[in-house]
């Protein structure tokens, strides 16, 4: 190659490198605000205009959910059954006796497990020879006490009703929510599995969120279109058709972060959420928002 050609070639190489580097920087800069909300591997690097649109709809919780545990524990299975059966009957009767409109008690299933002989456990933990351990039976059922919130209730009325349910359940011997930590180990487990949120006795839920999601999607798409048009105008190009749309994570504004994280993971791996998990919860009685994020890529019209 001639020296002149070499120089020309070198200039060309530098120009190409400059263009490529500039494109990369620009692309990176353009992608910055969107990237964080995009699913991994999300587009935006292709031709056209890529934007993220978000939509949010808020609604008041429709259901108050209280988790409770009923247990029967004894050496004789017959005793354990009597304890469990009577405790359940009495708790359910007491709650139903409140005659609260919209109160529903569901079972989350029961388990039959080996009970623990307290003296044996205590002796072992002290490093002593344990007394002969008797086998015990523990029957446990998780109950879900749901109270449908009517729009006509004032906040105070609802609070009264919820507290009435709590009092009645506890008086009837139900263990409401999770038991607070009583020692070092339980404290560790407590914080490893959600910490203070475990102390919540009541969660407020949005149920049947399809309609709200529909609205949120519409808002997100409108938002995406608006953003894309703005970019096209600025770039002096004409916005074309939509090339691709990706659903990002839809998260509620409730403070159930564990639920949000789970949903994010599921969205990442393309797993459809079962309907019951599409409920959005909050430990605070306030409006819960349904958020939708969409990554939309538009073509640049020629």
């Amino acid at each position, binding site marked *: 190659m001639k020296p002149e050609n070499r120089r020309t070639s070198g200039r060309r190489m530098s120009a190409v490198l400059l263009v490529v580097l500039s494109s990369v920087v620009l692309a990176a800069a353009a992608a910055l605000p969107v990237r964080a909300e995009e699913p991994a591997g999300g587009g935006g690097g292709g031709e056209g205009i890529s934007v993220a649109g978000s939509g949010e709809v808020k609604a008041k919780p429709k259901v108050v959910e209280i988790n409770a545990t009923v247990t029967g524990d*004894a050496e004789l299975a017959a005793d354990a059954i*009597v304890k469990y059966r009577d405790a359940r009957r009495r708790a359910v009767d007491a709650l139903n006796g409140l005659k609260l409109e919209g109160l529903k008690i569901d079972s989350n299933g029961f388990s039959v497990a080996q009970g623990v002989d307290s003296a044996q456990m205590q002796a072992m933990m002290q490093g002593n020879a344990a007394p002969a351990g008797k086998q015990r039976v523990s029957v446990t059922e998780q109950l879900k006490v749901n109270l449908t919130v009517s729009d006509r209730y004032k906040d105070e009325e609802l609070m009264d009703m919820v507290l009435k349910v709590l009092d009645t359940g506890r008086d009837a011997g139900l263990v409401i929510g999770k038991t607070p930590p009583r020692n070092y180990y339980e404290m560790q487990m407590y914080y490893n599995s959600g910490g203070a949120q475990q102390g919540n006795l009541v969660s407020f839920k949005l149920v049947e969120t399809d309609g709200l999601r529909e609205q949120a999607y519409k808002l997100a798409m409108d938002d995406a279109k608006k953003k894309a048009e703005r970019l096209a105008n600025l770039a002096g190009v004409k916005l074309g058709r939509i090339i691709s749309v990706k659903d990002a994570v839809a998260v509620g504004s409730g403070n159930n972060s564990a639920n949000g994280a789970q949903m994010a993971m599921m969205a990442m791996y393309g797993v459809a959420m079962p309907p019951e998990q599409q409920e959005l919860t909050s430990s605070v009685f306030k409006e819960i928002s349904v958020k939708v994020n969409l990554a939309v890529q538009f073509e640049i019209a020629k």
Partner: protein
Amino acid sequence: MTRRRRRVTTCRRGLMGLLAGVVVVAAAGSVGSVRAQIIDTGETAEQARKNEGFNIRKEATKFNDALEDFARYRDKKAWELAFRSLETLAEAKRDGMVPAGNGFFVPSRQRVIASLTSLPPEGKQAFRLFYDAKAKQLLEKAQSAARAAQPSANPADKPVDEIATLREVYEKYFISSVGDRAADRLGDALFETGDFAGAAAAWGSVLKEFPESTLPKLRLHIKRCTALARATQWDRFDDALRQIRTEFAGERVSIGGKEVAAVEYLEQLRSAPATRPALASTKPTTMKSTTGPTTGPTTAPAPEPEIPEPTGPIALPADDTPAWQIKLADESLNRKLANALNMNQWAAQFTNLRGALPSSCTDGRRVYVNWFGIIFAADVKTGKMLWRNRKFSELGDKLQNIVNSGSDVDVYTATVAGGRLYVTGFVFSNLGNYQEPVRLVSMNPRDGKVNWSSTNGSLANYSFLGSPIVVGDVIYAAARQRNGSDVSLLAMGNEKGELMWSVPLGTAQGGNNPYRGEAMVPSALLVASGGTVYAVTNNGAVLAVDTVARRVDWAYTFPAPPVMREQNVWFGGPQPMPKPKQRAAAFVDGGTLYVKEQNGDALYALDLAGPSLLWKRPVDRESTITRLDDGRLLVIGQDLGAIDAKGKTHPMTWSARLPDLLVRLTPIVSGQRVFAFAPRGVFEIDASNGDTARILRGADLDSFGGTLNRAPGRLIAVSNIAVTAYPVSDGPESTSGQQSARPTN
């Protein structure tokens, strides 16, 4: 670094670590030798299990070997060898117990007689060939002594002890041809000395074990029933009466020179008020005025009119307003408790102070509270504090001593009976002293002045184990030597507290205070019925003590509950707080003794006529029991429950779960209602099905709940922070005369 060098370094590090470990362990050992016991007992689980449990006084192995030899030779009909074994048995001291099967133990003397009577007819015939002459000689000697009833002609001769001689014939030669006559005469002699239970036993053995006796049976029955009546053993009396009605209907007998119909005579005896049983009572009874030396000011209480405990149904008040309330713990005291626990965190792991309740009782006039040595009385109606032995605030200064000693605060009890208040506990000024004994103090319930105390005199060397019971003028209490584990039943005079007699029960196998190493002996529970005091050791045994003959009649042993304090420490931090353990329970109901030890895993029903085990069933360790009504038992714990004692499998018929318990619960059973002071209020439970009839939230909702006491017009709730009385309506008295049932607190 070469591989070898790394290995050497690693080894060195390992050795250093090991050395450090040894130093730490040694240091820990020097700080408190007790800690090592917590970490490693050096025993296998099997050894530990063998060593656990109350060790009743057993006969030596030689004695048991001789018993086995006798049984073997008897079965082989080798009479001479069998009798030689019997001679070995007769020569032994025979003051211990021997196994009688199924966990029962009987006095060895009783077992020797049983061995004799177990011989087949040919064996008995052979026995008579060998021993009749000797038996007749002894009987003649005793009869001569009785006939003469005067000193021997020869002053050098020792006077013949008639009872001892008759007892020798009875115990060694009962199956000889004169054994029945010796037993009959022994019964007469014992009856004359006031040993009615012994007399009844002697006559009973002729009726039961000597079918060929020519002595008139009806007469023996009458004599036995009279003795049983005097000994207030009504269950046995009733059994005998039923038998007499069947076998001797219409027959007449000469009593005191008069011909009377036997059955009519016995029925009159049964209904005579003078011979009604004098049961142990926690109610005040009319008593003689007391005089004599006391350890405090002479405060002989004049008899106070008896206030019977209401037996009708309780109607809870309409609202939560109490009739009165006495606050025990205030903010300052709570802070001191927290500080005391914080200042000695190691010891704090072993104290049961956190979940402890004051002990309380009432005589219907006042409520008495023993709050860790601060004892006071309040008027039941007004709540006015009538007296107290010291200011409440003084407890705050002693909390650190209680924590530092790791002592068991369950030792504080209060019992009112026979017009006196009895309290147990440590001497307040000595709190924290090593091996400090638990004292028994008698107080005047009207002014709190001390009548007498076990701090000096014949009781000074005893440490008391649980509440005393009072039968007539005698106080019974379980106690141990202050530094030992040998447990005795003490009988004391109620006026002066003098030790009248004691019966050794055996040796507790408790363990040691995990903090300071002192011997831990569980508190015993006593219950009196029909001349017998039953001692529940809370250590895997119940013993029946004949208070007339002053000897252990029988013992029943079963797996002992583990003896451990509320400690929850292990490496890495405290373990889950255990559920509150309810007190032991024992009561006699229709000839059956029901026993549930504290922390024991089963309920035992013992037939006192045998004695024999009628049945047993598992019950939660933390629970206790009480009588609910005829044929039903109430289980008290996290779950209240009813057990059908008459059912074939003794099933639990209902259960009522209470809110999570934080302290021991002492409910009241009144008619068809159970009242339980739980953390969320006073629960009124329908005893027919366990349903909650009502919850009285009350005026002590910050407390952990606790004990209920009943007095006329008042339901008195004693919690960890207050004594609160609610106005209640007492319904019409129960026609059955059944009193409110409650376990001890």
